[in-house]
């Protein structure tokens, strides 16, 4: 009996955490005088109410998923990667440039190169923190947060300066060539980008890597106990650096997909916050690639639905940031929540018996 209860805990805990977050969010909604049920109703409609909306949610889920993969890879190595947002932004920039300024290429090649450019730029942005960590053992968390701030400033500089487009009314990079646009899988009733295919492939690759390969085992050992891995002969710093750079590449890929698939250019102030969605998703899913894909879809739906909630129910979409924050904060207390759930589960068969 206890065994089956134990295996439920990994699923019950995230569910409890998500429910608590939604409950607290309802508190906020009530505070501004809106009926939470109406608000959530609008959100659900906006996210999943029609095939059109569903496709929107799926599209949004794709870059979120890559960002979550980026966090997950770092977590396997035992590092908390808060820098995904900055790497994502910089990667988006890379894809925007490659998409706009490379000319005369066939579409498949152009798209591939642009995405690779995004991954490269994302990786480059992760390079400085990685080097500082490997060489001087700097606190990565703090450096990443600083880099996130720098990323936004850097992008603004590029957009307003060297990469400015004369005559353009809004602040953004030059629009990408038609050949660089991410192809669509489905166009009716709404456009579903090919990004979803890439996500599934990458997800499978990651699952295979971490579960079945020698290298994946070593990476996990680094995350489980870096000191023991070191004593075992595993080159910990190398694996961690690899994980950080791979995370940068995945984050850059997320940014690139947003540019090539949705916006077709990089707007000033682009910082969608997917890097911060990725953290609770990766942690609630315990790093499992399939769990991450499910979680990303939920978040995609949340984001799409929140714009509807804002226009139809008058609830600011900033509530999504709040929900992100609550999720992450509750995850920090995860073990207590797990403990409480286990305790409650144990209590049930003893009802009517002696006091614990």
């Amino acid at each position, binding site marked *: 009996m206890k065994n089956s209860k134990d295996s439920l805990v990994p699923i019950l805990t995230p569910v409890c955490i998500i429910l608590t977050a939604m409950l607290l969010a309802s508190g906020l909604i009530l505070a501004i005088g809106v009926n939470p049920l109406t608000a959530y109703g609008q959100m659900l409609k906006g996210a999943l109410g029609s095939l059109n909306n569903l496709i929107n949610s799926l599209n949004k889920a794709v870059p979120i998923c890559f960002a979550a993969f980026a966090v997950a890879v770092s977590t396997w190595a035992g590092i908390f990667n808060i820098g995904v947002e900055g790497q994502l932004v910089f990667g988006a920039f890379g894809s925007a440039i490659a998409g706009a300024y490379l000319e005369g290429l066939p579409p498949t090649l152009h798209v591939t190169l642009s995405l690779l450019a995004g991954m490269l730029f994302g990786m480059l942005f992760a390079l400085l923190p990685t080097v500082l960590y490997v060489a001087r053992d700097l606190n990565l968390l703090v450096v990443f947060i600083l880099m996130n701030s720098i990323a936004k400033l850097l992008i603004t500089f590029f957009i307003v300066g060297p990469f400015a487009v004369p005559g353009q009314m809004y602040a953004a990079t030059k629009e990408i060539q038609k050949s660089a646009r991410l192809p669509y899988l489905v166009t009716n009733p709404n456009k579903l980008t090919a990004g979803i295919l890439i996500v599934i492939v990458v997800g499978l690759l990651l699952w295979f890597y971490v579960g079945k390969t020698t290298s994946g*085992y070593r990476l996990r050992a680094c995350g489980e106990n870096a000191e023991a891995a*070191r*004593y075992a002969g595993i080159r910990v710093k190398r694996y961690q650096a690899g994980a950080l750079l791979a995370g940068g590449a995945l984050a850059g890929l997320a940014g690139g997909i947003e540019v090539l698939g949705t916006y077709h250019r990089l707007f000033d102030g682009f910082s969608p916050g997917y890097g911060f969605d990725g953290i609770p998703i990766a942690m609630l899913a315990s790093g499992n690639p399939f769990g991450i894909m499910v979680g990303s879809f939920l978040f995609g739906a949340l984001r799409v639905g929140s714009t509807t909630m804002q226009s139809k129910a008058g609830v600011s979409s900033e509530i999504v940031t709040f929900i992100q924050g609550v999720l992450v904060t509750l995850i920090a207390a995860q073990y207590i929540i797990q403990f409480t759930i286990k305790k409650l589960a144990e209590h049930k068969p003893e009802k009517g018996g002696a006091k614990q």
Partner: protein
Amino acid sequence: METAVNMKGITMRFPAVVANDNVDFEVKRGEVHALVGENGAGKSTLMNILYGLYVPTEGTIEIWGKPRHFSSAIDAIHAGIGMVHQHFMLIPQLTVADNIVLGEEPRSKMSYLRGQAVEIVEQLCLEYEMTLKPKEIVSKISLGMQQRVEIMKALYRKADIIILDEPTAVLTPQEIDELGRMLKKLKTMGKTIIIITHKMQEVIDFSDRVTVLRRGKIVGTVNTEETTAAEITQMMVGRNVSLGGHKEPVETTGAALEVQHVSYHDGRVKKLKDISFLIRRGEIFGIAGIDNSGQKELSEAIAGVIHPDEGCILLGEQDITKKHTEAIKHMGVGFVPEDRQKSGLALGMSISENLILGYEGTDRFRKNRILIDKNEVLKAAREKIERFDIRPPQVGAIVKTLSGGNQQKVIVAREISHSDSLIIANQPSRGVDIGAIELIHKTLVDARNSGKAVLLISLELDEVMMLSDRIGVMYDGRLMDVLDASKATREQIGLLMAGGMIHEEQ
């Protein structure tokens, strides 16, 4: 009131284990009472309950005949109980005086009266005839002096009942004698003393009465005069125990390991100073010495975790001085590290995954260049679980849930199976139950008998003397001397452990 402490029906349940099961424990006024049992028997837990750090699930406590309820340490302190823990409770960056008065600082409203603290300590030193330097920073004083600071803490808080948990674990033989003298002095001053120990010699030397615990339950209480070490051990374990394996005469052929003039700096501190020795095939070379004499660094240097600044290390004919751990492991060197939880295991992973840690790259466990052969891994895990009696015998059990002894068996199983020429074992029986110690000793001696070389590092002098063929003594990063185990005496080793000096204090 003749009874200082009366604990009745004490039961302590933790989520994973029942540490104390209906224990009755009684201590008379002015006696030195030894509490013994093997690792994991529940002795420390019982005393931590007496000191208020744990609240027992069931049971009552009476101090000097009055029922008491301790919800935290301060209650026990107010009842006149003091405790010196096995791992010293000191703040390294503060002074001796600061550490002694912490919790009951001499103060004027919010200000801390440092000067007064120093005076108080000097006064107490005179009263109890102890030598301490109140203004010295704790991280700079010897372990023996640190222990005196710990005892002084209890005396400062006016403890009448003093508990000492494994007080001799980190002392040289001479320091142990000094401790014995101090205990006698405290006894003449009317203090009641409880010593937790698992060393028979100390029980016989120091105590008036002995209480034995086994697996959380009381076995019995006897007068020390009326019993023998063998009888107490029998009570502790419940059966006859043969530690030390069974050594057979072996042809010790050729040098398996040669260490030549090795030196090593850690930051600004020189941890290894010109160390030279060799270990032959078919020999157990034991290293004795007080903690932090460089043993850890020596084992790490041989295993390739760190690299010496000077000198060289030869494995057989090969120079492994600059080689990385991965390469050295592939050459057949097994390494059981000092701190199993910190350096030897990934606690969140399963037994089978831990059994390949460090060896995941060997041909046996690989299916091809990138994949792990899961079936082989599981098969090998099952073999080892059976051979070493690892409990629970499930390949998928998460190592965090295993007992200390079983965790250690996982590491020993892993390292022994993959070792060829040399096994390094650093504190292999620390915190491990007797059954597991028996197995580990047997494993090491069997390895020796089959022609492997064993480097055994241990703080337990008895273990070193029992298992080794030759004994090297380390002090302050130097190898003081190498002795023949069959001829060496405790006193000789003790002198070398303290740096070859006769007086204990520098």
